[in-house]
């Protein structure tokens, strides 16, 4: 925890640290990090590749956004670290970081001008230099680049100095514009897909990027909405509290609206995004299960994919017409697949009951591999299909309605997720949830408290396995064919990452995590392998900035903000308080 705390302190916003003499090293360091990053993305070809895409037509290209985000972050952080020392010094700090970052890029330009870097660095191409110098040659171009980078850093620094409400509004507005610009193709496609929305497409976008009016409108609408909410939100919330009728009516109405929206989503979004939603949903279903095991009960399970595989294979064996063993339909096989998950969950649970932490992780990891090797094995081929897997798994159907396309399977996955989220939520608030919490926090004390560790741990494994098996069963019938190779360790790791990034133990957090880790890479598919670079960097950055996850459970959040032992959280008013600290 101490590392996290120091990192927070280091990256933390305007907290007014009493700086010692070497304070100016901070903006220099930020600038240098930004400069190195900017040179790096240039030399791996990202800048050049992005330069072909416009965010706002003719005005802003995507590589400019990339460089601005990198150097702007440095300016923003530098200014917020100096916020306590007054505006003047903060602006100087932001400028300094911008200048330092620029120096690195200029060095690249000069070096590239003198030596042919291309022999070693494939992407140090003439077109990169052209792009960086705005096609104006080294002299003027470098000046323009410096101007742009420094202006970006100073601008970001100024944003950092704004009061929270306008700052958030600006950042939201800019992020929406950049996001909508970057996702141009996808958004256009989606808008065109649905009649009423297709006007939006022509109004917002030209063929190359956002129109200026589109960008301005988006900025004003979203920024303005955020600003308005910041000013009026508390009032609205206050007022709705005093109106019991409105409050009691608001919940069901909101719930109904959410359900209608969820039901209409595939039609609004079209085929591609529905496919993405199905993938996100299947991952979320697994993550909700793992969240019970790891997040709620604190049992680190690295072989979780095994239950996904068991669900998928049970579904396949019971339904496949290729094997022709049973010929069940989907609905008859689904409960049995879930049951198979539960049984294996308990079977895995028994031998690992006494294990904790890293030992448990290793054993479960082994379990995941065993299951994968079993379904791959030649000996079991007649029953499990070996390396060729099992095909001809029938689609789920209700009456004559068949779940074939992603737009249809979506409803199945949605049903599963809503079911899993509801169960998780009920479990969490129950006696069971409290037992898991106690076991997670301190197993020995939990036992001293009268909590039956064996029973509750096995229940956690069983519940987690049930959701994964359900996800596997749906995935199998969606694809119609399954292969052993689809059940690798990587899936366990990804699902664990979803739980951690989303916010361990918190149900909405886990769903958000599935969107971030499964949905985003799908949506950013057009950027090829670069998306994995951004993805990795984003993960690292996120764990530094939000170590408890995107939407953490209250308990974990407060731990990270808690004071050291002996210091009261809130000063108590009673006279005897505070004398121990």
């Amino acid at each position, binding site marked *: 925890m101490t590392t996290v705390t120091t990192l927070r302190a280091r990256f933390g916003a305007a907290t007014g640290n009493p700086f010692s003499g070497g304070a100016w090293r901070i903006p220099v360091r930020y600038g240098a990090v930004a400069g190195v990053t900017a040179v790096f993305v240039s030399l791996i070809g990202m800048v050049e590749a992005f330069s072909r895409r416009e965010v706002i037509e003719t005005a802003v290209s995507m590589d400019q956004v990339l460089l601005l985000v990198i150097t702007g972050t440095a300016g923003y952080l530098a200014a917020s670290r100096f916020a306590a020392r007054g505006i003047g010094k903060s602006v100087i700090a932001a400028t300094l970081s911008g200048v330092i970052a620029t120096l690195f890029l200029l060095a690249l330009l000069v070096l590239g001008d003198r030596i042919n870097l291309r022999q070693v660095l494939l992407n140090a191409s003439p077109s990169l230099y052209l792009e960086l110098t705005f096609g104006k040659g080294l002299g003027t171009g470098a000046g323009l680049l410096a101007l742009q980078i420094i202006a970006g850093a100073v601008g970001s620094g100024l944003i950092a100095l704004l009061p929270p409400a306008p700052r958030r509004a600006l950042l939201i507005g800019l992020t929406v514009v950049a996001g909508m610009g970057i996702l141009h193709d996808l958004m256009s496609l989606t808008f065109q897909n649905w009649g009423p929305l297709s006007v939006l497409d022509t109004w917002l976008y030209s063929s190359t990027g956002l129109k200026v009016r589109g960008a301005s409108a988006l900025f004003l609408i979203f920024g303005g909405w955020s600003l308005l909410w910041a000013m009026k939100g508390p009032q609205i919330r206050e007022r709705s509290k005093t109106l019991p009728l409105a409050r009691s009516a608001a919940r069901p109405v909101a719930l109904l609206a959410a359900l209608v929206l969820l039901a209409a989503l595939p039609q609004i979004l079209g085929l591609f995004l529905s496919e993405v939603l199905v993938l996100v949903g299947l991952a979320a279903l697994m993550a909700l299960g793992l969240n019970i095991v790891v997040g709620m009960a604190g049992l680190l399970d690295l072989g979780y994919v095994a239950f996904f595989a068991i669900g998928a294979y049970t579904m396949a064996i019971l339904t496949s017409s290729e094997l022709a063993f049973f010929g069940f339909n989907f609905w008859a096989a689904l409960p049995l697949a879930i049951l198979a998950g539960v049984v294996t969950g308990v079977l895995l649970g028994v031998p690992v009951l006494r294990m904790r932490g890293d030992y448990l992780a290793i054993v479960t990891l082994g379990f995941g591999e065993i299951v994968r090797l079993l379904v791959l094995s030649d000996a079991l081929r007649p029953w499990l299909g070996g390396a060729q897997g099992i095909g001809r798994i029938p689609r789920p159907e209700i009456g004559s309605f068949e779940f074939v396309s992603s737009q249809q399977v979506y409803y199945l996955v949605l049903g599963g997720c809503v079911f899993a989220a509801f169960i998780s939520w009920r479990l969490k608030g129950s006696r069971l949830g409290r037992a898991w919490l106690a076991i997670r926090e*301190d197993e020995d004390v939990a036992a001293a408290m009268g909590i039956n560790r064996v029973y509750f741990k096995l229940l956690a494994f069983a519940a987690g396995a049930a959701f994964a098996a359900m996800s596997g069963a749906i995935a199998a019938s969606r694809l119609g064919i399954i292969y052993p190779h689809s059940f690798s360790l990587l899936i366990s790791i990804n699902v664990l990452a979803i739980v951690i990034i989303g916010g361990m133990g918190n149900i909405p957090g886990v769903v958000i995590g599935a969107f971030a880790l499964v949905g985003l890479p799908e949506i950013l598919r057009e950027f090829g392998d670069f998306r994995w670079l951004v993805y990795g960097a984003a993960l690292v950055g996120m764990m530094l900035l939000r170590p408890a996850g995107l939407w953490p459970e209250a308990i*974990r959040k407060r731990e990270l903000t808690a*004071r050291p032992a002996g210091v009261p959280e809130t000063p108590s008013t009673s006279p005897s308080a505070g004398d121990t600290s």
Partner: protein
Amino acid sequence: MALLEVRNLHVSYGQIAALHGVELEVNEREIVTLIGANGAGKTTTLNAISGLLRPDRGLVMLEGIDLSTLPPHQIVSRGVVQVPEGRHVFARLTVLENLEMGGFTVRGKAEIPRRIEQVFELFPRLRERRGQLAGTLSGGEQQMLAMGRGLMAGPKVLLLDEPSMGLAPVLVDTIFDTVRRLHSQGTTILLVEQNARMALQVADRGYVLQTGRVVLSGTAAELQAHDAVREAYLGVG
């Protein structure tokens, strides 16, 4: 018949025997203390009583019924509750949540708030800090919380393992005062202590444990007067 009886208790850690036939009994409404040097086997005895350790041989009887083969959670629900050594509180939960967790085995929703109220009366300090994270409490407050949480289960016998460990003298007095108050309210306590002087002041009777055996027993007054005890544990020559 004593409320809690330990007969011929043998416990070993792997090959190494830690207890060699410990015998002790605790009568209803009594404070009995178990004193002994470091490593004498005091914690081991308590853990064996509460089921956290499985004895090799011997009986642990509560009201004449043997507990030694039951898992810990069943022993707790029968009324033997241990407050572990070293103030293990749930650091990331609040004081209130810790207490609620202590009432895990309690049936009936209305009972929990009533017991929390009793704990707060016993430890007013905890009431002030009910919303504070247990991990941020001072050492003494954590000990109070650990004891309060143990009381939440409504124990017939409370096993206290070195409640005064590592506390400043003022807090040691507070803790022992509380032990006295619990006693006057009718709680039965088996108290393990290094601080033999204080322990013998509050206790009715005591046992002296040495390398896994009870070597001496008697009323607190007898032990206080005993030469060997005075020499070895009370620091009087």
